[in-house]
């Protein structure tokens, strides 16, 4: 019996992702041209990246180091020997007529991550390769212009196993990947600048089937949201075709975000035989076990490990731990505040609240308040010396002008008044001014405590310690 439920419920979505990230080197993979984004077309080119006759590639050790860090950040096994290979095809923005990549012997193999959903995703391999240039079709009427600034820029390609079963998991995997690589200082992972690019291999099969069905590859996924959307559309298309008994053709698809549709790539689909073979201009990359161990020792703690430490040993609530670990600088500031004596939960509140708010206003700027000063401020608030509200004011001043919190609070008259005589005077005044409310309170209308506390705070100019005021009013009204 068929026909019950949506078509997509009977099918299982199978996704494998190929992710290209640009390694954050200063210069290209095989020459000394700059990798800076946004230069005039072809400003960053030389005989090597132009593929001039007689020019030869020389590997950039910084790129090898960063690719090794990427492999370790993603839990892959770095290979002691890997080999650059030529991938042959003709295209005007590919200067040599081949791309230098890695094929039979990639830099790293076999990684695995468990996502929050519980899904376990394998990483097949990570290899290094050079980027191609850019064909620009709308600059010169009737002609194609070529910009080779990107040609030779170092990339790491990260290929997953077809282990993903939902668009949400695909996005979670991509977020983990980006977070890990940014944390490890490997890549900016900016989709806008093209330093993170995603291709998705998608297929659908009936639930319970063990073999995979024909897949299609979706390119041009410019954001995680678009990736999820395009995968959903393509899955639906596959399911419908399977239901109609039509064969899915293995081909490259493009996601057109303007029309919200996935359609076959316009270029004619020649079946490419890339004729890979080891690049004879480049000796094998031999990494010693000692080198790999040294890189491993220099790796920062992974966001996942950090998150666990925050929740398990620092008492940070899980959502706060997630938010802190999206940003290495933020996480490190938070830890410095904790090291300076603040408790984890409160330090997380301040870091994600006041600190983060101001960082958002000044993107990229370092936090001007030393972690020790924030820790001292947290201690003042905890001791009741300044109120929470006044504390925020003190923080704003520290951010703007510098200085230590106690001195600022004193200068600006923000020290809370907890002295019983002073408080009693204000309470007397308020009782005198609000006899009705006092009478109702004494008759048992407890919610009026808050109103009267508010009046005392107002009269004190915010300096009264609200806890003590509360207590005094309750006592004097005979509420115990």
């Amino acid at each position, binding site marked *: 019996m068929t026909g019950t439920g949506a078509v997509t419920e009977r099918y299982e979505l199978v996704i494998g992702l190929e992710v290209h990230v640009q390694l954050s080197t200063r210069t290209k993979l095989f020459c000394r041209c700059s990798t800076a984004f946004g230069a005039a077309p072809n400003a960053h080119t030389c005989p090597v990246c132009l593929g001039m*006759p007689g020019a030869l590639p020389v590997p950039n050790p910084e790129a090898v180091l960063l690719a090794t860090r990427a492999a370790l950040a993603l839990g892959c096994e770095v290979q002691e020997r890997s080999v650059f290979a030529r991938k042959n095809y003709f295209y005007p923005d590919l200067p040599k007529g081949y791309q230098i990549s890695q094929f039979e012997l990639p830099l790293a193999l076999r990684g695995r991550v468990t996502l929050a959903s519980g899904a376990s995703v394998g990483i097949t391999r990570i290899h290094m390769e050079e980027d191609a240039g850019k064909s620009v079709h709308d600059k010169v009427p009737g002609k*194609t212009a070529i910009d080779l600034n990107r040609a030779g820029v170092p990339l790491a390609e990260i290929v997953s196993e077809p282990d993903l079963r939902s668009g949400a998991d695909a996005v979670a995997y991509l977020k983990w990947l980006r977070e890990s690589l940014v944390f490890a200082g490997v890549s900016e992972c900016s989709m806008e600048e093209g330093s993170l690019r995603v291709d998705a291999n998608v297929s659908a099969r009936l639930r319970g089937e063990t073999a995979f069905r024909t897949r299609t590859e979706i390119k041009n996924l410019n954001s995680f949201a678009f990736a999820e959307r395009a995968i959903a559309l393509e899955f639906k298309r596959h399911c419908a075709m399977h239901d109609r008994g039509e064969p899915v053709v293995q081909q490259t698809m493009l996601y057109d975000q303007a029309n919200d549709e996935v359609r076959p790539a316009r270029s004619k689909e020649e079946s490419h035989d890339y*004729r890979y*073979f080891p690049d004879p201009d480049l*000796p094998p990359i031999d990494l010693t076990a000692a080198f790999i161990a040294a890189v491993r020792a220099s790796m920062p703690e992974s966001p996942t490990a950090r998150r666990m430490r925050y929740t398990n040993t620092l008492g940070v609530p899980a959502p706060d731990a997630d938010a802190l670990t999206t940003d290495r600088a933020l996480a490190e500031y938070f830890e410095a505040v904790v090291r300076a004596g603040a408790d984890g939960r409160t330090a997380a509140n301040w870091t994600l609240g006041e600190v983060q708010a101001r960082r958002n206003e000044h993107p990229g700027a370092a936090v001007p308040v030393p972690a020790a000063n924030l820790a001292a401020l947290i201690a003042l608030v905890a001791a009741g010396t300044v109120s929470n509200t006044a504390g925020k004011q003190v923080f704003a001043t520290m951010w703007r002008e510098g200085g230590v919190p106690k001195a600022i609070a004193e200068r600006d008259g923000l020290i809370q008044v907890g002295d019983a005589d002073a408080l009693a005077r204000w309470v007397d005044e308020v009782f005198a001014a609000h006899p009705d409310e006092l009478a109702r309170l004494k008759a048992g209308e407890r919610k009026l405590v808050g109103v009267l506390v508010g009046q005392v705070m107002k009269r004190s100019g915010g300096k009264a310690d609200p806890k003590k005021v509360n207590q005094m009013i309750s006592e004097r009204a005979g509420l115990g």
Partner: protein
Amino acid sequence: MSSRLDGSVGALVDAVQSGAASALDVATESIARIRASDSGTAGDAPLNAFVSVDDDVQSAVAASSGGSAARALAGVPIALKDNIATLRLRTTCGSRILEDHVSPFEATVVGKLRAAGATIIGKTTLDEFAMGSSTEHSAFGPARNPHDRDRVPGGSSGGSAAAVAAGICQVALGSETGGSVRQPAAFCGIVGVKPSYGRISRYGLVAFASSLDNIGVFGRAVDDAARVFDVVSGPDAEHDATSAAVEPETVQQEPGRLDGVVLGLPAEYFPDSLDPAVRDRVMRASVAARARGAEIRQVSLPHTALAVPAYYVIAPAEASANLSRYDGVRFGRRVKEASARDPLRAMYEATRSEGFGPEVTRRILLGTYVLSAGYYDAYYRRAMAVRDRIRADFASVFASGVHALLTPTTPTPAFKFGAISDPYEMYMTDVFTVTANLAELPAMSVPTGRISGLPVGAQIIAPRFAERAMFRVAYALEAELGGEAHTG
């Protein structure tokens, strides 16, 4: 004036350094000799050793750092094979596709030569992209053999060999992938040196087959070649990742005895089918070596017969990728083809069809085929395995106490133009030379007599980076053979 060009490089350098000769005069005379060699006034067909000549002699001399300075090659005119990138002259590779190509950078060796005071007089004729054994595949006409202008000078570095043999210059650079320096040196009766792979930077040498390509040196005499070799060799980590890191020992030395040296004669290089006259001339070298104190030993390199087939898989495979960059997009010839359907593809096809000659086309097709899906294992991977066997053959002979090998350079002396039209037969002429390229070993050819007036070469092959030992043998053979090296 009595020509400094007819003496040794050492004598010329001394004369320039002492002020007895000027770099400008010597270069001017050298260029005059190029003109004379092409004039046909002696009733000879033009030698056609050069594709380009630097007519602005003054600037050519000025481009090197001071002919009179105390430099290793002060005032020495030198010719470069036209696949070595230079700033002042175009670099055509003997191909229509690069007919007007001027390189925006110069080869490492060119910078070293200029710094040593040498004057680059011109660029020499070669088989297109160095693919060939006769220069008959040059797009700009073949060079001729100065000993008999109806015969080929050998190839692919035939122009450089002809220029040196004709007395235009004392030294020249060539390149070789399977014997393209040693074979023309043998055919033209001069010295030709192939370095260990990695010993001379390839930066600026237009690639044919990157794992086999080497820049090589021609000299009229062993010492001429040695002096140039010492200038152009050495590490170049900045530009060539396959360059060897170790500083080489100088190869220039006084000729001496060979006491304690063991020379191997590999049986596979003296097959029964070998021309007895060639065998006889090579044995002259063996006798000369023994006279100088060397011990001669029979050895075997059992996988030699597999070398040519393996070579003609690996070299075209690498070439098919190396030559993809000639696509009409960024430099070189572009042929526009009106085609509404697919103008890009039409441009590629027209450019490459018109730009490449038949031998280059053949090798690109062959190389594309052997790398194709389904054929890679059967051809390329197997050829690489054969290459390992050939390396192992040499390693085991050298490990057995043999210091160098002595063999014929070529199976025959220079052949006539058009005599070999079957590509396979032409490929088999490389049988004694491709092995050193496959095994990355240094090897050189020295004159060892003549047959009916045509030169014959003896080849010395040494362990990798043992160039100094190889030259020691060459110096001794040259001294011992004397005039016999150049007579029947």
